[in-house]
């Protein structure tokens, strides 16, 4: 019995220091993560409390003070002034179109460059990659002239075309590198079965690449959503403008309205957050799919 006691006692004694060692580490990690979470959420929190803070409250206590009362005036005001429903619709139309169009262009390009054999494909890819590094400010003027000469100035179509092309440069590069590692056996098997190039693309490549394409599309959507310079240059009429351009309403020449700015910030991030929550699973799936293969 004593032996048993010793036997059962020792492992427990051995196990305990382990548990003790692990427990504090866990707490430290948890603490760090919580801290990181607090850091990440802090801007959201600031936007939220200032969006519902009355103006005089802000002028008395600044951005960090807790509002004495809650009001939704700033949010309602911004929504009304910016005609926000319209801007939301515009942003959704532009972002969705760009993301679909850019994915399609990237897919076609990458199919040719990554799977097909194009002479000088590395150089083409390098040029495309260089293209993504050109600052937008430097291409704004030519784009403006081109759009004006074909009568697309101040249309959303112009923004969609420009952004779809710009983003597909990066998409082509990314998809080509993924496709260059595409298992040749599958392609050859399909060819032996008599599949045309188009059929290989639509029936073999696209279904296998689908997670990656979805991730790419999601990124394109979010990037386009946050795009500022090209929409502000190309979309003149208020009815054509996007959410990010509407944010400018809160900043005047010399003045800004902090509570209105917070309201705009809150309304501006909300759609991206919602979009992210919806497509969160696609994103992780895509990343995991890439990692395993």
């Amino acid at each position: 019995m004593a032996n048993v006691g010793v036997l059962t006692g020792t492992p427990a004694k051995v196990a305990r220091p382990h548990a003790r060692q692990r427990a504090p580490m866990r707490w430290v990690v948890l603490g760090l993560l919580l801290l990181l979470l607090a850091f990440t959420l802090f801007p959201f929190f600031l936007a939220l409390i200032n969006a519902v803070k009355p103006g005089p409250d802000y002028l008395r206590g600044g951005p960090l003070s807790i509002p004495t009362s809650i009001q939704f005036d700033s949010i309602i005001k911004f929504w009304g002034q910016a005609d926000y429903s319209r801007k939301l619709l515009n942003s959704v139309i532009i972002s969705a179109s760009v993301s679909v169009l850019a994915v399609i262009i990237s897919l076609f390009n990458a199919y040719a460059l990554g799977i097909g054999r194009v002479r000088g494909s590395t150089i083409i890819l390098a040029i495309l990659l260089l293209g993504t590094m050109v600052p937008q400010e430097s291409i704004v003027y030519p784009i403006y002239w081109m759009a004006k000469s074909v009568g697309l100035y101040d249309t959303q179509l112009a923004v969609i075309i420009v952004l779809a092309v710009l983003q597909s440069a990066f998409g082509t590069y990314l998809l080509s590198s993924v496709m260059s590692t595409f298992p040749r056996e599958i392609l050859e098997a399909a060819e032996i079965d008599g599949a045309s190039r188009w059929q290989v693309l639509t029936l073999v490549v696209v279904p296998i690449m689908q997670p990656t394409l979805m991730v790419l599309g999601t990124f394109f959507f979010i990037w386009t959503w946050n795009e500022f310079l090209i929409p502000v240059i190309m979309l003149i009429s208020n009815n054509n403008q996007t959410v990010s351009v509407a944010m400018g309403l809160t900043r005047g020449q010399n003045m800004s309205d902090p509570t209105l700015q917070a309201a705009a910030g809150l309304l501006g991030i909300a759609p991206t957050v919602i979009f992210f929550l919806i497509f969160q699973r696609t994103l992780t799936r895509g990343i995991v799919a890439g990692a395993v293969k």
Partner: protein
Amino acid sequence: MTTTLPRLALAAVSALTLMSSAALAQGTTFNIWWFEGAESAQGLTWTKALEELKANHPDVTVNFEQKTFDQMQQSGSMILNSAEAPDILEYNKGNATAGLVASQGLLTNLDEAFTAEGWDKILNEGQLVLSRYDELGVYGSGSIWGISTYGEYVSAYYNIDAFEKAGVKVPTTLEELTAAFDVFKAQGVTPLALGGASTSGQHLLASLAYTKADDNWVNNYQGLKAPLDGAPYLYAAQTLTDWLAKGYITKDSTGMNDDDAALQFTSGQSPVYVSGTWNLGNFSANIKDFKWGQFVIPTPKFSVGSTGNLWVIPKGSKSPELAREFISLLLSTKYQTEQANNGGVSFGADAAQVTNPVGANASAVFKQIADKQGLGFYPDWPVPGFYDVLNQKDTGLLQGTLTPEQFVDEIKTVYDDAQASQ
């Protein structure tokens, strides 16, 4: 993907068709844009005047669009150079903006309208300096390309309650101002809120420089006519470092922007804040805890300030007559008075009708400055990019990395380079 792609593509196609429905309005339309905030004195007044214009012309469809300052800065000249330009719009004054588009031939010349519409009876030459641009787009001479209907100037906002409590009266000389600062300092209050990294920093600096500036200096400085005579700036820089050493300004102000500095004033921490009349609307609406007023920084003649942004009529305006009528409305005593009552700085308000003390005072002060031709304009105007240079060097001065002498040397280098290469 095979199922979602076509569906998404369909959505994209339907989206494209939606876009092509750009309204091709029939009949007479009048398109007007401005970027002043909807609740600013200007925004309120202009909205009201536009209502009257609509009532006077029931057959005209009036399309107003609220623009943003950013947008007009980014793409103003591109818009004016396209068929998408409105019939009249507010445009930022100055060489780099209104001057540029005037010199590019994108605006309608207003010389004839100026006398025909009787604007010459309301505006004096001092209020036209920024309306005139020469062939190179430099303000001050040449034809009239735009009309401003309001003014702006930099002054000291002060907390009347705090001044009364401390037994300090409104200073009329620089000595009285520093004496007032001393009283507050002795009570443990930092008297002056300053956005050292922002507009109010360089405006204070320029205001101090203008205490040592005469006509000749200001004309040379703003006209880029001679290498910079650094004496007024040296005095300003020395005064500022002196104020910092004495604790009139907090050491934190080096990295502070105007919003934060204004917050120090509105929260009652600092009783004085030097900034422009663009704060009037915000302060009137939101300061509830104390009474506040303005005084002009005592200078012999010049104050930092100018006429406001311009109304310009694009070259391709389809309704220039209506545009002129709108400017006439804004310049009329009725809307000038209205503007003052909204807390704005008016040129031609009927003083007896102005009930808003803020607007009445601001308009009176502006008139005083303008009548003695004392608008010294803004310090960053003469040289492109000077705004950032001044902010940067101002911050260096406040941080102590630049001595006043070095400060003057460094801005002089930039200024003289621009002056020599013009």
